[in-house]
């Protein structure tokens, strides 16, 4: 794979931008820009997200049924480390460089330590379109990386509250409850459940459910990305609430962490081009499902419009349109 010529790669890469899933993302985005009245029922998007998480889990589980738990340890460890370090880096950039106030900075930073399953799924579609194989451990990492950043965010927030702010009379949200929520999040349950079931179930019985969970995957993903394109298109009009610095941050942060992630994948975890790309995507992506409500509860002082706009309106489309091919070519360049 690494011997692919540069020209070939460029062709492939451009062609890959024309995969149906990414075109559907663009379609949704454009529909929003031309103010079409197109609407997907919220329940459809939620149902599709559930389907995709289970499918990815099962898929990973089937592959992992050939591996031992020990093999997964480095990936797990890396996932936790990334989840802890990325929000701290992000916080420092936002607060020190961007001069954004402490609590808003923490709330935003936390999103970048966690992950976006939608971005991850798009990356898988991208790799499959290019017929690039990839390790399955990143799927476990996807499940694991949802939570640590939230904990880090909680810790940072209460440290900063103690140091810089005198507590207002506001209710302190129950921290142990928030921590519990970070680990029992719906996406984690579905991913981990899928992984486990794909791992445990006999090959024969798994085969009966693959027509649903496997054959339809790429098609369903198209509808998901159509919906994500529309969400991104909606959020893009909120640009001004974020301000110039944060808009740049929303595109640069994934770049930085994506490249770090690819390097970690390639050199630390010894993954192939495909696997390293996925680690890059995990690092680069910002959560827009699990973290926003957690931050809303934990840091009610912060402005949700800002972090939602950044994660959904800037970082997500950036990764889908530019980030993924970039992390892939970087992985390709390294290996």
């Amino acid at each position, binding site marked *: 794979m690494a011997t692919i010529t540069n020209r070939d790669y460029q062709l492939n890469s451009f062609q890959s931008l024309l995969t149906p899933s990414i075109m559907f993302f663009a379609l949704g985005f454009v529909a929003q820009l031309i103010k079409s009245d197109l609407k*997907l029922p*919220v329940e459809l*998007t*939620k149902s599709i*997200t559930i389907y995709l998480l289970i499918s990815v889990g099962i898929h990973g589980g089937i592959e992992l049924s050939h591996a031992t738990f020990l093999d997964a340890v480095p990936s797990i460890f890396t996932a936790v480390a990334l989840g802890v370090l990325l929000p701290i880096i992000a916080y420092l950039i936002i607060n020190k460089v961007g001069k954004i106030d402490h609590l808003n900075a923490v709330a935003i930073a936390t999103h970048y330590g966690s992950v976006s399953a939608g971005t991850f799924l798009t990356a898988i579609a991208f790799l499959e379109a290019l017929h690039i194989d990839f390790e399955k451990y990143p799927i476990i990492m996807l499940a694991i990386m949802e939570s640590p950043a939230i904990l880090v965010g909680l810790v940072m927030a209460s440290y900063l509250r103690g140091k810089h702010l005198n507590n207002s*009379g*506001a*209710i302190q*949200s129950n921290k142990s409850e928030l921590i519990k929520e970070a680990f029992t999040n719906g996406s984690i349950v579905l991913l981990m459940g899928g992984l486990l079931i794909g791992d445990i179930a006999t090959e024969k019985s798994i085969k009966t459910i693959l027509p649903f969970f496997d054959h339809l995957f790429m098609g369903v993903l198209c509808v998901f990305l159509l*919906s994500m394109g*529309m*969400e991104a298109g*909606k959020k893009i009009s909120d640009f001004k609430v974020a301000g110039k610095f944060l808009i740049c941050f929303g595109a640069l942060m994934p770049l930085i962490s994506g490249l770090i992630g690819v390097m970690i994948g390639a050199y630390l975890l010894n993954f192939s081009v495909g696997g390293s790309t996925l680690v890059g995507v995990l690092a680069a992506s910002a959560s*827009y*499902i699990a973290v*926003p*409500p957690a931050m*809303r*509860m934990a840091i*009610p002082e912060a*402005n*949700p*419009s800002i972090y*939602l706009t950044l994660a959904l309106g800037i970082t997500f489309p950036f990764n889908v349109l530019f980030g993924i091919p970039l992390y892939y070519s970087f992985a390709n360049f390294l290996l």
Partner: protein
Amino acid sequence: MFSVKRIELVIEAVEKQRVISTLKAVNIFNYTIYNHVGGYGERGARGDLAFGEKFENVTFVIACPENRLTTIIESLRPILKSYGGMCLVSDAQWIIH
């Protein structure tokens, strides 16, 4: 028919459970709840996202005897303080059934 106070509380969906517990703590068990409520307030728009009923409002309607009003309001005030929302109180007649 007797007079009651009608409390109408619009608050973020994430606070639903907290409101229910708070009401229970002051011995108010009965309420009516409307989910998926949208709105616009000091904290921006609510209820227009594909992810997340968590960024929607819910509305509680609580009918209570006049003498319970202050207790209830005071128990809810800290929640309103942290998470915003609207709380209206008006007079109504309860039709005994």
